[in-house]
């Protein structure tokens, strides 16, 4: 329970630090047109400062509001639930509908996945589209913030946000003693997890934690581990990123057949994370880093 309280407290303080957009230091309209090139994508030219942005990516929505481009956002997808000042969306990023997006009259659309050839469809309508795929590293996440800053006319704000994130993360990591603890990061109750190569895996790597999925030899970076495998690995820490989606908690984990024998369960080191914070590569990564730091501190 105490871990939950710690995470909740961190999430609250996190809100306080991030939801106030920095004061704009940029002159609106200056510096356009700009050309930006997302990682692994092609160059996109934005003719004028966008004022009707549609974001179908929850992480990018958080980025936009953090760098002060929030007032330029017209519509978001229905999973973009943060910050609270963002518009509430009805667009579905899983089943994107070009007409529904076009009806918002966007001058910039941001997506994280080219579902149903959405990008080509929007380009036919002469709407610039930024395809910002899930970040694969912290640097990638910082790069996306900088890119969004340039694309929306908030370059200096974005640089400041990135700088703050870097210094906060460095500070937290420096203050936390490194322990060779093992961990299991749970994405769903049927055992889907991450390896240390993923974005979130690298966050754990900052603290020198050892991922039990690495040794298990599963397929890809998001493998599934059977319950037998997790019980045999007996991790020091279990992080639950399926608390909102699937209502998992320290209690439900302890009640699973065989799991009550695990060190993490016995020592109270089953840590509940906010699913969104643990799966988005936006400014709230700092909250994730703090939550992991608190868990490491407690477990060691």
């Amino acid at each position, binding site marked *: 329970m105490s871990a939950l309280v710690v995470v909740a407290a961190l999430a609250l303080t996190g809100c306080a630090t991030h939801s106030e957009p920095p004061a704009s230091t940029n002159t609106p309209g200056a510096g356009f047109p700009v050309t930006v090139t997302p990682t692994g994508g092609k160059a996109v030219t934005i003719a004028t400062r966008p004022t009707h942005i549609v974001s179908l990516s929850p992480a990018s929505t958080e980025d936009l509001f953090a760098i002060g481009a929030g007032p330029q956002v017209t519509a978001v997808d229905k*999973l973009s639930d943060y910050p609270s000042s963002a518009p509430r969306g009805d667009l*579905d990023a*899983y*089943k994107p509908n070009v007409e529904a997006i076009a009806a918002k009259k966007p001058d910039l659309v941001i997506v994280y996945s080219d579902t149903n050839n959405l990008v080509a469809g929007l380009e036919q309508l002469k709407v610039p589209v930024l395809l910002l795929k899930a970040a694969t590293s912290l640097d990638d996440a910082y790069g996306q913030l900088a890119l969004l800053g340039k694309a929306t006319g908030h370059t200096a704000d974005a640089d400041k946000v990135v700088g703050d994130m870097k210094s906060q993360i460095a500070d937290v990591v420096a203050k936390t003693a490194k322990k060779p603890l093992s961990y299991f990061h749970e994405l*769903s*109750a*049927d*055992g889907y997890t991450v390896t240390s190569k993923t974005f979130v895996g690298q966050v754990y790597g900052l603290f020198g934690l050892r991922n039990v999925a690495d040794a*298990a*030899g*599963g*397929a890809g970076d998001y*493998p*599934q*581990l*059977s*319950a*037998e*495998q997790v*019980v*045999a690995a*007996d991790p020091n820490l279990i992080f639950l990123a399926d608390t*909102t*989606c*699937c*209502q998992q908690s320290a209690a439900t984990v302890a009640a*699973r*057949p*065989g*799991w*009550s*024998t*695990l060190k993490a369960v016995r020592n109270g080191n089953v840590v509940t994370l906010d699913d969104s914070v643990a799966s988005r590569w936006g400014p709230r990564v700092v909250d994730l880093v703090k939550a992991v730091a608190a868990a490491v501190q407690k477990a060691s």
Partner: protein
Amino acid sequence: MARPTRLAWWHLLITLVALLAVTVGAVLLGAIDLGWQRVLAEVWAQLTGGVSPLSEQESAILWQLRMPRVVLAGLVGAALACSGATFQGVFRNPLADPYLLGAAAGAGMVVTIVVVLAPGAGVAFLPAAAFVGALGGVALTWGLGRSTGAGTATLLLAGVAVASFLTAVQTFVQQLNTLTLQQVYGWILGGLSTGGWSQVLSALPYLAVALTVLCTCSGLLDVLTLGDEEAASLGVRPGVVRLVVLGAASLATAAAVSVSGLIGFVGIVVPHVIRLLFGASYRVVVPLSLAGGAIFLILADIVARTALAPAELPIGVVTAFTGAPFFVLILRRRQS
């Protein structure tokens, strides 16, 4: 080979030995290799009160994860195969399976609605939801079939109509709530991965009653194959027999679906294999399908647990992928 119409001792012997063998194999095999000598030593230690050779985690893997799962696979396989054989007898249709009367569609619809209405908290109620949905689907079919006429053909068509309708409702609800897609899909594919002793205990009473009824009544299915008039002249009331055995088969199916989701192919392929190997009489097919279904699903679950280890294959994929070629092989050998 003679085609006996009675259950012979050697039938039982063969199937029970095979069941014992696959059960032992299933307990020894898994994503984690515990070593067969150590597992046997552990079982011996538990029986004699000796010192366990396994660590606490390994012991939990064996007794709390693997054992209940093997037992659950056996129970679900037995229920589906036995129900499938019964459905084939009642409808005199070789393609009849336990899901024919709307059990699968009913369970699928109610599970989807529960997941959508209570995405998190509903998880605990999914077994009950599937159970109620499966029985509800069959009851709807039964009511519809009875109100539009007698006869098994009407019932069959009512089943098709009900299943299509309930599946359409499920798909519609699903489309409105794409976020829950993964959860519903995972359930529909079927699986025993979350099975523990509590699920074994929750399904056992229903299965015990239903499977006892099915095995006891299996001789009456042979009488039904003669046709309703002939059956009536022999003192059997076809309508009552159908109500009782379809009710029991649906109860067994609902209990199986509630703990394992939808696992296809077992209900069709196992009774046919038994028929080809041991004879066509339902007095033989129904009881032996009980053991045959258990053997088949335990084997399928071994593959599900180990083929992609550490990940798991959905068991429905395994039953179809391994069952279909095996079935064709048996058919061809039978013809030659």
